[in-house]
């Protein structure tokens, strides 16, 4: 057969591709961009940027963005979007904090209630998962565009967080709860640890489980995935519950970090999360995206925020510069596809 002659002829090229430096550089271009940014900021700040404590600050400060971005990768791969994560953060934060107040707090949400911190944590996660479930339900059962379903949740969820907390931060929390945001384990700040764990789990989920492969398949061609026997609705529902839970976790981390469940937490966070995900190479055209990419994207965003503060760039100019850098990072990264 004529075709069989091709196989041996082309096999080497497959091996070659694996060790192709150009291809390698292309694939990891975004990492190079991050490294370039780090070098630039280090030079501009006379080395202040690269100090260990500062780098830890950068990572800790983006851990909430990074945790949610790990879920946003799944969402965007399936051609979805989740605008509600910032509001879910707020809901989880106020609920979690309300169950972790000490008895001597000035304003106590549930007077007389004293539950273990783990209950507060589970409640925060459950709020996130529940909100994600509602999103997923609207998207799969009512076939509402994800943009609109999650826009509704963004608006209503923020309102719900305000109502629950009466618009006031819920403060004076137990040490065990605050530890989630302020503590360390083996010298590593807990938020960074949680970020790492989430990234690990999400990577395994996306690459090594059926759920993850189905996620890619749906993004690649939803119709084809359906015909291939994939239960699209169930996978999508799972994805929105997953990102909701992650947003819930981020809400716990943020509220514990500031020691108070504030209903304004997470305002505008969705845009940073989406930017991190897309800078990290996840495509709005669906079917393409990696967890490690979103981590790099989150670190780029964190480095910009931190570097601009270090450089004493005026707040107004910071916005301009941040907008420009996001666009430039994407432009450079897009060009690898040419």
């Amino acid at each position: 057969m004529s075709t069989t002659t091709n196989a041996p002829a082309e096999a080497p090229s497959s091996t070659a591709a694996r060790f192709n430096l150009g291809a390698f550089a292309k694939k990891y271009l975004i990492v190079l961009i991050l490294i370039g940014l780090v070098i630039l900021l280090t030079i501009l700040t006379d080395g202040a940027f690269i100090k260990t404590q500062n780098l830890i600050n950068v990572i800790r400060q983006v851990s909430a963005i990074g945790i949610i971005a790990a879920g946003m990768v799944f969402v965007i791969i399936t051609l979805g979007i989740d605008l509600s994560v910032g509001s879910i953060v707020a809901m989880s934060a106020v609920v979690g904090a309300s169950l972790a107040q000490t008895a001597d707090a000035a304003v106590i949400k549930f007077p007389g209630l004293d539950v273990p911190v783990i209950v507060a944590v589970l409640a925060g996660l459950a709020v996130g998962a529940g909100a994600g479930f509602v999103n997923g339900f609207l998207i799969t059962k009512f076939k509402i565009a994800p943009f609109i379903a999650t826009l509704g949740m963004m608006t209503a969820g923020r309102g719900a967080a305000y109502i629950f907390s009466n618009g006031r931060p819920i403060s004076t929390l137990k040490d065990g709860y605050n530890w989630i945001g302020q503590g360390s384990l083996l010298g590593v700040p807990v938020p960074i640890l949680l970020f790492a764990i989430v990234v690990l789990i999400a990577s395994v989920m996306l690459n090594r489980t059926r759920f993850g492969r189905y996620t890619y398949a749906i993004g690649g061609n939803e119709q084809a995935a359906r015909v291939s026997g994939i239960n699209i609705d169930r996978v999508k529902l799972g994805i929105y519950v997953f990102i909701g839970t992650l947003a819930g976790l981020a809400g716990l981390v943020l509220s514990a970090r500031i020691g108070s469940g504030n209903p304004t937490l997470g305002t505008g966070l969705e845009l940073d999360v989406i930017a991190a995900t897309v800078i990290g190479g996840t495509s709005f055209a669906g079917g393409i995206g990696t967890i490690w990419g979103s981590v790099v994207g989150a670190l780029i965003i964190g480095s910009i925020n931190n570097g601009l503060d270090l450089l004493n760039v005026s707040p107004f100019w910071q916005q301009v510069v941040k907008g420009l850098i996001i666009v430039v990072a994407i432009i450079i990264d897009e060009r690898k596809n040419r």
Partner: protein
Amino acid sequence: SSTDGGGSDTSSSDSTGGSGGGDVTIGATFPILDQFLQTVADAMQSKADELGVTLNVVAADEQTDTQLGQVENFIAQGVDAILVIPVDTDAAGPMTQAAQDAGVPLVYVNRKPSDLPAGVPYVGSDSLYAGTVEMQALAEMAGGEGNVVILIGDPANEAAVQRTQGCKDVVDENPGMTVTKEQAGNWYREEGQNIMENWIQSGDDIKVVCANNDEMALGAINAIKAAGISLGADGILVGGVDATSDALASMEAGELSVTVFQDAAGQGAGGVDAAMTLIGGGIVDDYVDIPYQLVTPDNMADFQ
């Protein structure tokens, strides 16, 4: 803490984070730079210029966690003192803690954290007082009678809550007055205007508009004028807070009845002064009061 090696020029980038030299760097974090806080920042800057210290101003987009990160960044960067206008007065603990752990002097400005350890001073004014004097003046002009509506800033914001509370407290003291409506205009003139237009249509006989800031008050005035209703004692009385230049112009035109002057310049300069004292090893009072002042057509010339 380290000091920088650059010149004393305030905004040059070479003055950040370096070591050597003998200059002082102060970091200031703002929740956001709106019209009022911009004035505070300007006052800090001119005070810093005057003293020859470097001021590093950042804003936190109204995000508590961002602000905490900024304080951490200042510490990592080695500033000599930190000025904080907290996003969330109930969530200042971790910032205080971080600065104390690092031995960096910290001064709160404009918004008073709910729990403040000794040795960490607050320079500012009392928002409850602002709402109270605003409404007292309005109630007096209205003869203690009539329906009151409240334009709230951002309902989750400390100052908005306190000023609103001040308004309500005074209304409660006047048996002839009731709060018939309250709504959030998020500090924006445009939203204040929309809400007032809608309220006018609701058929409510409004006598007093107690707005949390001048921007929303000016929006309400636009709506009232457009509806052909007169302003002032024989129409609707509108009060605000901040005494911005637009507000004073409106008062001069006989539209805005009351505003409350918050001494932005005094707060900014006071904050820098307190920080310098702490850097020099001195002691500062825990509460440095920069009082609010009521502005009415009688005394407005003093503020223009």
